[in-house]
């Protein structure tokens, strides 16, 4: 197991992509800190970058990596190694590489400019978002044999959760605004990991009113800490569920 992970991990570090990703995050974080001295504001601006970029990069990188290492997977599967170990090894190595890139990319400049507790939450939400979208990307990779199709499905996940879902949510709220929708919205938000991450961050920064109606309601309903705990636990479900489904498809997949 450790041997398999070691080789996948080495292979990952050799691709320049992870390095570029780290650099990109580092430069944007540096720039934000330079523009503004109020660290809460910096975190807020960073949040918007993180919510868009982290899922996108995670999804695209994971899918491309999976199909590029198809040969390696094929080779390993003919050896006396459990399929689950190979799948878990792939998942773990990709997640660790991406999370490391994210944590150093955002964390290092933040540390230089003086860390704020909210930065820790930002790092945590970024890491969880990475895990969620790596899971989703693995799911889309095992669903099809075609690389282009898999990237398409993975991008669709990103597009849906980052852009479409909010639009749909607004439409639902607008169309049914004669009814009490607070609880319904609360449930609906749990179906979108990006929104959940945003809420965790906003509750932490104590500016949930900025998020308008739902944010305010969320805060009223849960209070800060329960709200954060609730969102985090649902996010963990978002990591585990696609991973479970993908693993069970992979264990029966023909290569």
């Amino acid at each position, binding site marked *: 197991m450790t*041997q*398999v992970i070691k*080789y996948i991990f080495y*292979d990952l570090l*050799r691709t320049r992509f992870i390095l570029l990703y780290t650099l990109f995050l580092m430069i944007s974080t540096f720039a934000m800190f330079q523009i503004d001295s109020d660290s809460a504001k910096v975190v807020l601006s960073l949040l918007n970058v993180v919510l868009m970029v982290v899922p996108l990069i995670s999804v695209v990188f994971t899918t491309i990596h999976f199909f*590029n*290492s*198809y*040969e*390696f997977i*094929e*080779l*390993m*599967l*003919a*050896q*006396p*190694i*459990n*399929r689950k170990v190979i799948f878990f090894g792939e998942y773990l190595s990709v997640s660790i590489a991406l999370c490391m890139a994210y944590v150093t990319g955002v964390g290092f400049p933040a540390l230089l400019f003086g860390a704020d507790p909210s930065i820790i939450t930002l790092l945590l939400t970024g890491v969880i978002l990475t895990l969620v979208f790596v899971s989703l990307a693995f799911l889309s990779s095992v669903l099809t044999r075609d690389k282009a199709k898999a990237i398409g499905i993975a991008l669709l996940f990103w597009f849906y959760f980052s852009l479409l879902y909010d639009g749909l949510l607004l439409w639902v709220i607008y169309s049914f605004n004669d009814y009490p929708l607070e609880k319904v919205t609360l449930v609906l938000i749990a179906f979108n990991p990006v929104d959940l991450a945003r809420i965790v961050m906003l509750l932490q920064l104590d500016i949930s009113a900025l998020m308008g109606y739902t944010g305010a309601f969320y805060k009223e309903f849960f209070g800060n800490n329960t709200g954060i705990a609730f969102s985090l636990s649902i996010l963990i479900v978002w990591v585990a569920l696609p991973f479970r489904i993908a693993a069970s498809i992979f*264990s*029966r*997949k*023909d*290569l």
Partner: protein
Amino acid sequence: MISFNNICKKFGKLTALDQVNLEVKPSRSYALIGPNGSGKTTLIKCLLGLVVPTSGEIIFDGKSISNEWKYREKIGYMPQIGRYPDNISIGQLIDMMKNIRPSGEKTDDELIDAFRLYKMYDKKMHSLSGGTRQKVSAALAFLFNPPVLVLDEPTAGLDPVSAEILKEKIHGEKVKGKLILITSHILNDLDELATDILYIFEGKLQYNNTIDALKEETNEKRLGKAIATLIRQKELLDSIAD
């Protein structure tokens, strides 16, 4: 040692394997023949667990292989088209396999020496020619001294000298009492290497007997002609049945 019980495999509408029943034993060498797309590779991949049969089961040393992986320690597999990670060199690949698949006994480096692969240890896998890749696949299949060898088109793409080296190696392992499963279209090679013929056509196992029996049945001395006669007889029988 290995028995295939009622193996069926469907890819969508296509039936790749249809009720295959087969038993193979050590110290024998089985030649799997049949036209392209008849299901030879699928059968081999079923044995390796790369393809999961739609129904039926494979028993390896008395145990079903479904959801098992430990049994693969006893198999050396040489794929038809060896696909390897691009960014890795031959030396790294061999080291990696040794690390991932630790074996108590000494590894069998005979083919690495015979093919002079150690001279190219620094070459990256993506820069290798088809034939060299094939040599690497062969060396890896024999490396861990497995009691079962599964060779999918072993000599295709090899130059005559290397093909001879490989054939000698296969023959030597057969004499040592290993079970060998070969697919090939080069019937002359099979005449030297195989003891039994398994003829697969459209996913069905049509013929399973020793080469000597086949030659006797068809009254031919050469395997190539014997198989041609066998196929013609089958076609004749089929046309009568229709």
